[in-house]
């Protein structure tokens, strides 16, 4: 049982870390877009 739980836990943790990374990149891109907009206005 322990082996199975370990395998499933590792898969889900890795997937969540990847999703979290995607979200962080998305936020960084959104803030870069905002910077660009203010640069164009200025």
């Amino acid at each position, binding site marked *: 049982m322990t082996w199975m739980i370990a395998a499933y836990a590792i898969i889900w943790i890795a997937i969540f870390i990847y999703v979290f990374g995607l979200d962080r990149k998305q936020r960084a891109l959104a803030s870069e877009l905002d910077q660009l907009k203010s*640069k*164009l206005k200025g």
Partner: protein
Amino acid sequence: MKSRDYILPALVFVGMLVALYMIGFYAPVEREQGIVQKIFYFHVPCAWVSFMAFLVVFVFSIRYLISRDKRWDNRAAAAAEVGVLFCTLVLITGPIWAKPVWGIWWTWDARLTLTLVLWLIYVAYLLLRHYVTGDEKRATLSAILGIVGFIDVPLVYFAIRWWRTQHPQPVFGGGAGSGMDPRMAATLWVSLAAFTLMFAYFVRVRSRQLALEDEIEQAHQLADEASVSMRGDLR
């Protein structure tokens, strides 16, 4: 985000819930290995997704070399990233399954070794993308590696048919004695479908991000050029 953008993640969520339910309550416990065999329902889909990802890299790399359209390069890069993630999970969950069943974490048989080589090829692909400067040079070199590296995928797949390996023989189409309980097969198919949808979602999101990064970079360059020419006009 448009409302249709939520369809794919919603399908992934539902697919995963159904797969987990079937793994836990529908698929029978295997007679010889016991409950640890249930690792199979996530281990195999991870391998399937990594094969599919590297096939996508192969196809999109060819399309990039033909068209020189940066969109294909971005899509190939996104697929490679997701492929490496799932190939890593195959290489982690395999030994976790092997230890209680074989008594060892790892053995240098053809299937396992070629899978490790596959992982190294696509890690090299990502490193190449990270370190090579110049958009076109990076995209061209990556495309060549993405095409050549794909040669290892059929080798990994056929390794258990061509050579005697510690890794189990194929459960589908493996000749006499292969096959599995229909409830196990149904659970595997649902899990494969859920992982395929997850792969499609990750590649879509990541390739959009890469395209957006390119657009932002171009817009920054244009804005810099415009501000330089405006300063020149004011003088």
